[in-house]
């Protein structure tokens, strides 16, 4: 399982360095890093809660689907939990494939899942108090792209 949750800040570049090392047949590595936005000062902290064990298992299931669907050679997913300050990395996903199309699509697919359906509960804590975040409409539209066949592969 190459899914990890961490309470500590992490460096996405260090993960990418490690992920690219010693690969002779891969060709293509796509990555995505999600950073906490300050929302022009309105958000001071993001709080993410996971259900340890359950959350990794749910993500691993989707990663297996991505592996089969896009012929991935490898993948790595790291997700922050706990209190996250603006500018800090929340999530890092890397995908390795022979060609770039598969690597990009798999990374995109995994991010759509992670941002809309993955078992996390998210709270924004700012100067005006705190509020729980529900998935945005755009997240639902993004994930719906992968249901059934895409017109544009």
């Amino acid at each position, binding site marked *: 399982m190459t899914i990890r949750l961490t309470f500590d800040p992490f460096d996405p570049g260090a993960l990418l360095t490690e992920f690219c090392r010693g690969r002779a047949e891969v060709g293509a590595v796509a990555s995505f890093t*999600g950073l906490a936005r300050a929302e022009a000062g309105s958000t001071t902290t993001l709080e993410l809660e996971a259900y340890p064990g*359950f959350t990794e298992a749910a993500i691993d299931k989707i990663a297996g689907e991505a592996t089969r669907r896009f012929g991935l050679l490898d993948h790595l997913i790291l997700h922050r939990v706990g209190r996250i300050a603006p500018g800090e990395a929340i999530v890092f996903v890397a995908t390795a494939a022979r060609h770039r199309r598969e690597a990009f699509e798999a990374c995109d697919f995994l991010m759509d899942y992670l941002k809309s359906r993955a078992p996390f*509960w998210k709270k924004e804590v700012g100067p005006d108090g705190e509020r729980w975040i529900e998935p945005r409409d755009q997240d639902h539209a993004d994930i719906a792209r992968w249901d059934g066949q895409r017109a544009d592969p």
Partner: protein
Amino acid sequence: MARVLLFGRLSDVAGWREREIDAPFLSALRARLGTDDPSLGEALAGPGVQVALDQVIVRGDAPLNARTEVAFLPPMSGG
């Protein structure tokens, strides 16, 4: 003595995250939680709240034993 876990806004409503509660069935546990804290009972019955027993989502009623982990999961927001 099932181990009850509350996630997201449910733990804010209840004021706790984890508690040992004795109940032979999930339905009995729900009734017990609602009696002790009506606002939590209402939140648990809210739209999109799912229940996992030992990390597996279940629907409907189910028996509990002393080691069952019962997790109440509000709608998942993604990360």
